[in-house]
């Protein structure tokens, strides 16, 4: 299993291949389309991320000391964004998720490319991912 840092480096390299933001957006759309589906039973009100303008569901499950995330959104670009976060953080140990420094977001320029309210949505996604990790870590 690659570390959070290694995956971030990979993503940075992938985004460096694109010349402009339209191509990066197309890549985000592709990532959104490829995101493994969430089980319908987890698309609940509780799993909705507050602060996102489109609906985003996030589910977390602990297995062998690692936390696995699945997610979905009704907007495809949003789905692409959560797909990237899941790629970095899913399957990692709770303590690593909680303390993860997600500097790749600034490096690839994702946040600056979003409008203020959408950037807030991104912050909410990260917060919810970390909160799930924290909750599951403390449960055992």
């Amino acid at each position, binding site marked *: 299993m690659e570390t959070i840092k290694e995956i971030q480096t990979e993503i940075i390299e992938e985004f460096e291949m694109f010349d402009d933001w339209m191509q990066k957006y197309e890549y985000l759309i592709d990532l959104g389309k490829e995101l493994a589906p969430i089980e319908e039973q987890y698309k609940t009100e509780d799993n909705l991320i507050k602060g996102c303008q489109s609906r985003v569901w996030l589910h977390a499950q602990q297995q062998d000391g690692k936390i696995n995330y699945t997610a979905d959104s009704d907007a495809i*670009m949003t789905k692409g964004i959560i797909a990237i976060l899941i790629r970095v953080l899913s399957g990692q140990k709770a303590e690593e998720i909680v303390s993860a420094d997600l500097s790749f977001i600034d490096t690839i320029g994702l946040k600056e490319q979003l409008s203020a309210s959408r950037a807030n949505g991104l912050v909410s996604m990260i917060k919810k991912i970390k909160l799930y990790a924290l909750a599951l870590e403390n449960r055992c």
Partner: protein
Amino acid sequence: MSAFENLLSENTKLVAVSHVSNALGTINPIEEITQKAHAVGAKILIDGAQAASHITLDMQKLNADFYCFSAHKMFGPTGVGVLYGKEEMLNELPPYQGGGEMIKEVSFKGTTYAELPHKFEAGTPNIAGVIAFKAAIDFINDLEIDQIAKYEEELLQYATTEILKIEGVKIYGTAKHKSGIISFNINSLHPYDIGMIVDKMGVAIRTGHHCTQPIMKRFNIPGTARISIAVYNTKAEIDTCINAIKKAKQMLS
């Protein structure tokens, strides 16, 4: 109108209604609504935020008790607006806030308030905002609101014709009397996705439920993408906008 009439009765104290819908662009028949409200003895407050910089307003003809609008929707600064009220109504209304400049006389026996409009302008007002607001109103008056309305109507017609050429576009709000906006969706694409992509192409549209969730629920949609037209826009900009929407559709489909 019949839904409104069903709600209206002798018990109605106040009718509050938008002049122009921010979600659909519909110009509501406010003269008729005002007459009907007055007929049962109700007062009427009209929210003209989406109307004031787009269509002609005639307070005498309209005969509304209250009419309000915001500076920031008329090319002015944020945080300042106008509440117009008939003099006798405003005299009847108690102050909603206390502070400097709104008092006539204070004693232990009682307090009397200053004349209109000072009674409602407690404390240090937003002086800079109001001065800037006047400049915005002068700008509109110099262009003449009738001319603005005529020009924007032309742009709206043009944009409507052009956007309907895109397959799968559905416009929400197709009233005969409309102003300023085209609210739309394309097939089942999410309005946010459309908004994000056209934004990248330099086109600013609004996306979301426009704070009008009940009407979104009625149409069973999460929201719409909305083109807003103002007097400073041009036909060439409409073309740029339509092309950006076409590109977004292509990328998302």
